[in-house]
């Protein structure tokens, strides 16, 4: 079964500290992984796709197939990064259905 696990419900760091939001997935095929962000009372926005290998707002994520992980990282957190972050998976060749993790709230303190 396809599953996405975000073990931390809340991650609290100080401004300028490194951030790592953990994401592990369960899928036997070739998954497509995403990170979405939801700022307070706003819509979900696509942050990163693993196939793009891009850096957005200083965030990066590397797909590690051996560890079945797709952790989101940023070297220096900013207060405006405070939001809910969702890791999501879709299975290749299917209907495009996204399976989301439980979400991690990132709180960046001044």
């Amino acid at each position, binding site marked *: 079964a396809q599953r996405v696990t975000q073990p931390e419900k809340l991650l609290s760091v100080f401004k300028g500290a490194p951030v790592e939001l953990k994401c592990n997935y369960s899928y036997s095929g070739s998954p497509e992984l995403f990170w979405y962000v939801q700022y307070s009372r706003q*819509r*979900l*926005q*696509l942050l990163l796709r693993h196939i793009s290998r891009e850096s957005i707002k200083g965030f990066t994520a590397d797909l590690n197939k051996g560890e079945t992980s797709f952790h989101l990282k940023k070297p220096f957190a900013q207060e405006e990064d405070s939001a809910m972050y*969702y890791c999501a998976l879709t299975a*290749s060749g299917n*209907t*495009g*259905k*996204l399976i989301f993790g439980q979400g991690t709230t990132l709180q960046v303190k001044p």
Partner: protein
Amino acid sequence: DTAVSQTPKYLVTQMGNDKSIKCEQNLGHDTMYWYKQDSKKFLKIMFSYNNKELIINETVPNRFSPKSPDKAHLNLHINSLELGDSAVYFCASSQERLNPGLNYGYTFGSGTRLTVV
């Protein structure tokens, strides 16, 4: 020029009522979705339509009925509302999968906060 728009943004209604939420996208996407975000912020897919055709129907009570008059619209009608239906409902759309294994990601609407009292 909002890409995916939902109406209403807030909906407060009594148990037993019937209500509808509308969704429209102007991105030219072929696939649209409804997701439910519960009180614990967990997101779960409910329905998906591709070019007006239902392609995903998760385990959702049949009080929920999606309707897609054209590929730019996907509305959600809910009959006999219950307290447990209170949640935020998100509409989303995505680009057609032109190549197997390629997904461009979703564009979400701003959500409809439904409160059943």
